[in-house]
């Protein structure tokens, strides 16, 4: 990528919908069940929050010129992502209203990617209901669906605390295809124990995750995300594990599962482009005009700007990282008062920029190029990008080379990237650069 193309990167918008049918056992996200009334009130606040970014032309005699100017300086947005929680619980009209508002306040590109996290089972009980709801979402502008499948095994789904079954996944997916959604992502959680007690063998555990992945490959989604189960404090799973009710799959086993899954996907026409993300390889015909990588998530890994709207949402805008309040009451109050509901703002310094570029960039399979990292250094540094980069990181170069020697990291003239085994210990390598 050239320097100018870094700057041409457009902004993404993340909309957080903190509501769900019931909290899943592994979930540490900000979400909770809520009444319809609360949800309606929340959407109103959300739309008000988006309006706060409106650039109002001054009402002078040159109103028209001012209006044009305002139009020109609007932030360009090419991705909108409804995450949660379970945003599919919203009414399609609510999604439409939000999208409409975003299109008024921002300069939304024609090819905008609008993703909705649609959890199976949250769309309705019978096929007609699901068909209608998904169709309406499509009319509201949604052109990419992300299904939180998590597993294709009903016992595991039950253990995870999901409200859906494996057959719901197939049903919802096929309905979405019938309607014409041609960009669908499926999420799956690896290394979920099949039993609450330790009766399963290593081979059982491996087979169980592989079976899950095989079943979703059969559906041929355009995108697959695979995350290893992670026990987060404050979740039901965490307490279960603490209490000995849940036997976590050991690290070494999990890594075998992960690599087996990566191989399986790569042999099934999927390209791994990030530690946990896989995109269907585009046909020759569509190669250049369409790419199934998640445009939105890619923004998190290449230092693009994104705005987070909604409760507890994070954003990265004009060199500042911020996070909205996590109190619903506070959120609604601040927005009502015409204030941005931001709780935490951090202004990135030079080191923040470069270190974030490196550690987020390392999540990508292509790694991070020196050019991409050193562009954040303000001072004119002599030498090529490679020497500037290692000049900046001279204190950790030896350790990085140690990782290279042991086969965890690739270092060449263009940049650095994790190897397959390096992914397993990515935190240690990333920590060098922060």
């Amino acid at each position, binding site marked *: 990528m050239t320097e100018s193309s870094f700057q041409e990167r457009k902004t993404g918008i993340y909309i957080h919908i903190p509501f769900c049918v019931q909290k899943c056992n592994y979930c540490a996200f900000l979400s909770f069940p809520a009444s319809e009334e609360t949800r309606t009130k929340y959407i109103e606040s959300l739309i008000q929050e988006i309006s706060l970014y409106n650039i109002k032309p001054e009402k002078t005699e040159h109103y028209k010129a001012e209006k044009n100017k305002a139009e020109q300086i609007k932030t360009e947005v090419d991705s909108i992502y409804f995450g949660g929680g379970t945003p599919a619980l919203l009414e399609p009209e609510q999604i439409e209203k939000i999208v409409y508002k975003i299109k008024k306040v921002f300069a939304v590109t024609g090819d905008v990617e609008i993703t909705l996290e649609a959890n199976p089972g949250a769309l309705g009980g019978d096929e007609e209901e699901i068909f209608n709801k998904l169709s309406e979402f499509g009319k509201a502008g949604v052109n990419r669906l992300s299904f939180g499948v998590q597993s294709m095994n009903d016992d595991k789904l039950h253990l995870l605390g999901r409200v859906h079954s494996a057959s719901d996944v197939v049903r919802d997916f096929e309905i979405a295809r019938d309607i014409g959604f041609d960009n669908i992502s499926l999420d799956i959680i690896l290394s979920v124990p099949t039993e609450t007690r330790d009766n399963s063998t290593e081979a059982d555990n491996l087979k169980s995750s592989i079976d899950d992945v095989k079943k979703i490959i059969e559906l041929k989604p355009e995108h697959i995300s695979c995350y*290893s189960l992670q026990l987060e404090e404050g979740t039901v799973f965490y307490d279960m594990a603490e209490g000995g009710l849940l036997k976590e799959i050991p690290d070494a086993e999990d890594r075998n599962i992960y690599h087996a899954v990566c191989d399986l996907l790569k042999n099934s026409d999927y390209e791994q482009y990030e530690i946990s993300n896989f995109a269907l390889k585009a046909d020759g015909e569509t190669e250049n005009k369409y790419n199934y990588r998640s445009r939105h998530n890619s923004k*998190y890994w290449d230092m693009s700007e994104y705005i987070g709207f909604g409760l507890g949402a994070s954003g990265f805008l004009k060199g500042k990282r911020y996070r909205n309040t996590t109190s619903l009451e506070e959120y609604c109050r601040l927005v009502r008062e015409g204030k941005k509901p931001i709780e935490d703002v951090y202004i990135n310094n030079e080191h*923040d920029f470069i270190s*974030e570029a490196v550690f987020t960039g390392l999540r990508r399979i292509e790694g991070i190029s020196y050019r991409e990292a050193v562009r954040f250094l303000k001072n004119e540094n002599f030498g090529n990008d490679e020497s500037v980069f290692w000049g900046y990181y001279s204190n950790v170069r030896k350790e990085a080379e140690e990782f290279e020697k042991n086969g965890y990291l690739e270092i060449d003239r263009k940049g650095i990237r994790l190897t397959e085994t390096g992914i*397993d210990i*990515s935190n240690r390598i990333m920590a060098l650069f922060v």
Partner: protein
Amino acid sequence: MNYLDKIRNFSIIAHIDHGKSTLADRLIEKTGLVEERDMKEQYLDNMDIERERGITIKLQTTRLAYKAKNGEEYILNLVDTPGHVDFNYEVSRSLAACDGAVLVVDATQGVEAQTLGNVYLALDEDLEILPVLNKMDLDSARPEDARAEIEEVIGLDASEAPEISAKTGMGIEDMLEKLIEVIPPPQGDPDGRLKALIFDSYYDTYKGVVIYTRIFDGKIERGDTIKMMNTGKTYEVTEVGYCIPGMLPADELKAGEVGYVCGSIKQVADARVGDTITLADKPADKPLKGYKKAQSMVYCGIFPAEGEKYENVKDALEKLQVNDAAFNFEPENSAALGFGFRCGFLGLLHMDVIIERLAREFDLDVITTLPSVVYKVVMKDGRILDIQNPSNLPPPTEIAHIEEPIVKADIMTPNEYVGSIMSLCQNRRGNLIHMEYMTKTRVQLHYEIPLNEVIYDFFDALKSRTRGYASLDYEFLRYEPSKLVKLDILLNRELIDALSVIVPEQQAASKGRGICEKLKDIIPRHQFEVPIQAAIGQKIIARETVRAYRKDVLAKCYGGDISRKKKLLEKQKAGKKRMRQFGSVTVPQEAFTEVLKLDDGK
């Protein structure tokens, strides 16, 4: 009326958290000379560490003026006491400076074990004790139960114990009236030969050492040449005065009074707590009783951590020493840790406090090694060596035998924990001398036990087995021959001298296993396998392996919450800074102090 009749010298004694410092604050506020706006919470605890731990280490003393209901104005000297077993000697000297003590008992909790230790110290000094019931503002206060306990357990008449709340100020007046009635005025002859007890001292940059003292006989004024009766050193007095608690210069201090004395003294070791001040040209015939030389009982190595300068550590230690007579150090060189210092302390808490002060007040990053006692090594050629650093132990072939220090340990406990304490002491090579029932439910156990067994985690183990109810007091008894060996630790087949320990031969195998297991938990996984071995001489007696790491990956990036991820990585990186590199093995600094905390009760 004699001036002495209007003075009361007293201490406040209490269990931790029973409200000593709050009461002191209230007294200062009610009667003292500190303006309310200058009041900090808990005025007397002026070190951060003290505030945080809720314990008083460094003494403070203050003069209060109280106009009693009989119309007379009294001078009340409040002498504060430190509150931990390591500082029992200091406590006893503070109490010796008083004529009475206020015993604060939490009316919601009753008498607790630690209270007793201090009460006995006070009774040893023949002090009158005024019990008071604190926290009476709380609904859970049970004054009658508390009274009954004071009478039963301590044997003090508590029927008239004032009921107060140090927090709200309730009952403070009544308590002060009672204090004047119960605690006797000091006695002494202002025209006699000077005898003044040093009960505390600290170093002031401008005045040199400031001595806190109680005058028993005679008087002291500026220009006098004073002599420390135990150390024999003489100084010219540059200033005397009262503590309010700031310094208020006065013309003289005379018998019965409490105040401070300055005399361009360079370090506190020259004005040792417990020493007697007299006049050089008209000395008293004999010093006050009870003086003890500061004796380091516990030693450990202090080394600059990665990136810290040796000189900075040295400067800081010197500054601390000026102010702490009980602390000493000398240079030491370790193959594993480089240049550092061997430091001597009164006990474990004293050690913790010094180490924490190095980090906080001097912002230093240091590594501390395992604490050790001083062994007397009798060589075959008849020489006797004092060894406090295991690395310096001569080869076994040259040693005739080794002697280790034995302490007399007194443990006071509710009777239900006796069994548990006995098994702990037995595991620690303790020898029960006798056991006595103080009351129906309180027992005192008298043990002789090697100091070596007390210094690691004995106190923690005792507390955890007795839910904090047992109290421990120990003092040095004698040296005794013992079968001891040096246990070495090898990481990745390399000997780490700073991890060597001296242990009883019969326990070597189990200790070796324990240390290896502990290190296995402490040492992070590396890119390769790290063998951990324990050895006596050439013989490997235990082995564990830290497996190579397989996974350290955070898969999910929470909705673009990069900051969260970054914090995790920063924490990981900061954690690494607290590591020490030995060849290719990285060891967290805490390994050097944690490794022997092997509570056998688990």
